[in-house]
C-alpha cells in the first residue's frame, strides 16, 4: 500500500471528507476537545487538549495516492477514532455524548472495512464466508505491502 502513500509533512490531504462531517459534531464539553478522525489519526491522539508536540516535529500528513490507500486510510482513521473513544469510555462509561459519537464512528468504521474488503481482500477472517476461494492469503501482509 505504501508506495501508494506520500508521507508529506505539510500538504493538505487530497481526500478529507471527514473534516466537513465532524468539525462540530456535538455540543457536549468533551466532544469540543476532539479532533475529527483524520486530524486525530495523523496525530495519534484524538484529544486536542492532550496533544503534546515533541520539539518542532509536526504530525506527518498521510496523503493516499490511489484508491486502495484511500480506502485503507478510511478504515485506519475511523477505527482509530472509535478506539480512542473506546479507551475513554472504559474510564468514563456513563458519558452519553461520547457513547453516541463512539457508535457513529464504529458504524462508519464498519462500513469503511466493507468498502475496502470488497475490492482489496479480507481484513479479518470473519469477512470470509461462503467463498469458493480462500482469499485470506491472496493479498499482501501488512509488513510487506510496500513491496507491492
Amino acid at each position, binding site marked *: *500500500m*505504501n*508506495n501508494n*502513500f506520500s*508521507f508529506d*509533512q505539510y500538504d493538505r490531504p487530497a481526500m478529507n471528507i471527514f473534516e466537513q462531517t465532524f468539525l462540530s459534531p456535538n455540543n457536549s464539553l468533551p466532544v469540543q476537545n476532539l479532533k475529527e478522525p483524520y486530524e486525530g*489519526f*495523523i*496525530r*495519534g*491522539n484524538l*484529544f486536542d487538549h*492532550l*496533544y*503534546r508536540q*515533541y*520539539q518542532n*516535529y509536526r*504530525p*506527518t500528513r*498521510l496523503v493516499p495516492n490511489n484508491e486502495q490507500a484511500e480506502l*485503507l*486510510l478510511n*478504515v*485506519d482513521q475511523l477505527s*482509530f477514532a472509535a*478506539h*480512542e473513544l*473506546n*479507551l*475513554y469510555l*472504559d*474510564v*468514563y*462509561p456513563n458519558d452519553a455524548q461520547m457513547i453516541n459519537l463512539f457508535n457513529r464512528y464504529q458504524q462508519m468504521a464498519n462500513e469503511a472495512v466493507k468498502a475496502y474488503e470488497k475490492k482489496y*481482500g*479480507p*481484513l*479479518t*477472517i*470473519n469477512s470470509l464466508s461462503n467463498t469458493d476461494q480462500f482469499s*485470506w492469503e491472496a*493479498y499482501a*501482509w*501488512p*509488513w510487506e*505491502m*510496500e513491496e507491492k
Partner: protein
Amino acid sequence: MWKYEKRLQYPISIKKKDLRMAKFLVTQYGGANGEMAAALRYLNQRYTMPDNRGKALLTDIGTEELAHIEMISTMVYQLMKNATLEELEAAGLASHYAEHNRSLYPTDANGVPFTIAYVATTGDYLADLSEDMAAEEKARAVYENLIDLTEDPDVIGPLLWLRQREIIHFQRFKELYDYYKQNKKEPR
C-alpha cells in the same frame, strides 16, 4: 480470545535501509520499556483489577500494544531488509546474524533478549497502575531518544505517532488511578 486484523494500526513504509537504526529501534520490540513488555504487563495485570473499568482498560490498552509490537516489528524488518552480510557486520549485527540470520528477535538495543522479568504484578491494583503509568512515561522517553537518533521522516513519522499513544495511555491509567483513589475499592 483475539482476532487478527490484517492491517497496521498506522501505515509504515520505510524505503531506506538503516541497520544502525534497526539496532536501536528493536528495543521498543524487546526492551524493558518496549511494546512487548507493555502488552504482557497489562494483559497479565487485568485479571486482578478491582472492577470492570480496570479490566476493560487494561484489556483494551494491552490489545493495542499488540498492534504496536507489529508496527515496531515491521519497522525493524523494513530497516534490515536486503542487508548483505558485510553490511550486517559493519553495523555490529554479526552476532545477531549468528543467532538469528535475518529474522526478528526481541531484544533491547544492547542485544539483551526480552525477559518477562521486566514486568511486575503485585496484586495491589494501585501499585500495578503506578507501574503502568511509569511504563508509559518511560516508553515515551525512549521514543524521544529514538527520534533524536534518526533523520529519516519514514521512521520519525511512526515514532511520533507511537509517542502520542504513550501520552494517551498514561492519561487513561492516571484517570483510572485517581478514580480508584477516590472510590476505594476492595482489593481482590
